[in-house]
């Protein structure tokens, strides 16, 4: 594992400068847009964080994992439980704050990642995919096993540690009560139905032969409205603000080129905006993750992962341990997933089995495949797609007057079909295709991935 930490010096500074500039620009953008756009930015940053890990795991080390949603659950639950139960830091005795929870989530992610990676390193493609599929379904179910600690089906509501709770000082403004309440109200309206929805899959094979014993179990599963849009649990969040969706989407897609900074000069601080603060947190975490990922991917470790992916025998002959490489890829991707999970928990102010289900894992896979399996930029584009497409479909649906059941499922249908098409026609995803196009125009060989 020591090779993980061997950063090349010159690149380190370059990457740091690059990431800081990006961080600064996106933070300025974040300050200049309305709360709904902040919310979208937070989601994109959260997805990007998790998908940096997917790029390393799926793209570079060639291990198709569906378990990263479950690893996000690890991060989210560690964050929730530590921030709910610990007032002071053990041993040190200083007051607890959100950053400590984030640190614990990160450590938890690495530990679980090493554990799973240890098993996964022995496995080939479909076996690994199946094991991680089991993780995606099994890990959220663990929450039901410990209802006192983890809240069971209904999950845990967490009070996000606001800046005066110990986070870096942002604005010393008084909270606007309405904003805070509105936020938590929205979170519960999203969270509760999706949490109930997970009842029915679990009951699937249990309602058979013991009518008396299982009658109570049957009741919830019948009226549980299993939402097919579980995949993106937040789809219905902005339903009330649908009219505001279109302009804000434009704003958030502008942060790729970071050119849309026209409004950045006049910061309107009309009070503390929780969405803006959450987005700032998500952006910061994503940038830290991007910095780590850039150094790993473009350094020696990235070459090690690619070597093992392309030909593990040749890699072993060259003195690389394929098992170590696979485990380290798992650990890094798990770290990123746990950080993303902790951020997700704060965006939702909630953790629950429904929020971290198979759908989340699948959407991470979709995002990373569409954006570009082996490109960090692809992860960001994938995150944008995951947030933008449902909103785009919603706006189309409003214009076309579609039925709800069409609207709710259209994004996933598009995702599924796009994934198949991308795998068949353009395995490099959006970024890979653009690179290929550029190399054709300039008549140079494409950069190795």
């Amino acid at each position, binding site marked *: 594992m020591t090779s993980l930490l061997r950063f090349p010096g010159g690149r380190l500074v370059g990457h740091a400068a690059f990431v800081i500039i990006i961080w600064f620009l996106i933070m300025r953008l974040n300050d200049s847009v309305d709360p709904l756009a902040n919310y979208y930015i937070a989601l994109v940053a959260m997805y990007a964080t998790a998908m940096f890990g997917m790029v390393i795991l*799926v793209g570079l080390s060639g291990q*198709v994992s*569906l378990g990263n949603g479950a690893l996000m659950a690890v991060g989210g639950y560690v964050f929730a439980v530590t921030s709910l139960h610990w007032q002071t830091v053990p041993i040190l005795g200083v007051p607890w704050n959100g950053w400590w929870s984030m640190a614990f989530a990160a450590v938890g992610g690495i530990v679980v990642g090493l554990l799973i990676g240890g*098993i996964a390193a022995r*496995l080939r*493609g*479909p*076996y690994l*995919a*199946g*094991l991680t*599929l*089991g*993780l995606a*379904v*099994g890990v959220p*179910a*663990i929450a*039901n*096993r410990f209802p006192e600690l983890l809240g069971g089906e209904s999950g845990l509501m967490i009070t996000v540690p606001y800046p005066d709770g110990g986070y870096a000082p942002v604005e010393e403004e008084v909270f606007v009560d309405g904003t805070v309440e509105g936020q938590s109200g929205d979170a519960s309206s999203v969270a509760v139905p999706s949490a109930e*929805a997970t009842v029915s*899959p679990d*009951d*699937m*094979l*249990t*309602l*058979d*032969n013991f*009518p008396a014993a299982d009658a109570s*179990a049957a009741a919830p*599963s*019948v009226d*549980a*409205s*299993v939402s*097919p*849009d*579980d995949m993106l649990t937040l789809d219905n969040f902005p339903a009330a603000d649908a009219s505001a969706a279109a302009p804000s989407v434009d704003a958030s897609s502008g942060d790729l080129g970071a050119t849309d900074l026209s409004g950045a000069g006049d910061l309107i601080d009309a009070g503390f905006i929780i969405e803006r603060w959450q987005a700032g947190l998500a952006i910061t975490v994503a940038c830290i993750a991007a910095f780590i990922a850039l150094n790993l991917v473009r350094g020696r470790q990235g070459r090690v992962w690619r070597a093992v992916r392309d030909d*593990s025998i040749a890699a*072993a002959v060259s003195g690389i341990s*394929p098992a170590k490489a696979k485990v380290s890829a798992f650990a890094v991707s798990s770290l990123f997933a746990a950080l993303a999970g902790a951020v997700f928990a704060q965006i939702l102010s909630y953790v629950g089995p429904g929020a971290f289900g*198979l*759908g989340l894992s*699948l959407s991470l896979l979709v995002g990373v495949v569409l954006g570009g399996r082996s490109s960090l930029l692809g992860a960001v584009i994938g995150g944008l797609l995951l947030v933008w497409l449902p909103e785009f479909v919603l706006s189309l649906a409003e214009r076309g007057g579609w039925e709800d*059941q*069409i609207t*709710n*499922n*259209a994004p*996933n*249908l598009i*995702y*599924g*079909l*796009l*994934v*198949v098409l991308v*795998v068949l026609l353009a*395995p490099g995803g959006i970024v890979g295709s653009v690179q290929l196009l550029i190399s054709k125009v300039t008549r140079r060989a494409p950069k190795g991935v």
Partner: protein
Amino acid sequence: MTSFIDYLIGGVSNGAVIALMAIALVLIWRATRVVNFAQVGQAMFTTFVALTVQTVTGSWVLALAVAMVAGAILGVIVQFLVLRPMRRADTSGAIIATFGVLIALQAAVGMIWGGDAQAYPQPFDNAGIVAFGRIWPISVYDLVVIGVTILLVVALSLLFTRTSIGLAMRASAFNPEVARLSGVRVSRVLTFGWALAGVVGAVAGVLVAPSSTVSPTTFDILLVFAFTAAVIGGLDSLVGAVALGVFAGLVISLVSGLSNSGNAPVVALILLALSLITKPDGVFGHHKARAV
């Protein structure tokens, strides 16, 4: 002790359904070295087709038959549109593509039939059979499920051992190149394998539907159980898939009965992880030396 035995007996019909789904996975793996994670999506689609047929006509047998035909067609479509054009080298791609199909199929089901869980009408008596002075934890419907499964397994083994198409399937799975040289039309045989797997998966879906509700994502957990059974059974072995499928049903029934139904996925995960640690090629699998 009686409750322990009751749970075991009650688990057999669940195990039969898991075994069927595991067989579907094994059939495709043997033929094309692809684990078809979309299998439960296909089964969900055909189960909703069956539900529609049954609501219109009221006939369970007709619904089952239509689902089987739909399963075969859907299997062929997936193979033709997705797996056949796939580049052979891209193993990650094949896995990802089957998940893409799963996502799309679940969304399509949600579009056509809605995302809410729907009850599937119980075709036979689902109360415990009363005999020898007690109520047994097994119903007429469970017996039907077990019977249909046995019938299907026997038919499949006859197909593989006694018919020329079965021989061709075994030859194509064993060595496609040699099979092609011997005059087997391998690509047709592979397509037939996909259709067959679609039929078996469709039967599994229709059989399990009355004992739960049906919604686009209900079968996700069945995929995990079936995959677990298929992997522990070796992914290559029909016998293994059946044995481990039934075994998984028994374990799940025990766990659900003795503790809590929510623990079943966790137990499946533990079983899967343990078996992969100790025997990465499965219990019934053909052990092949593998480089590195």
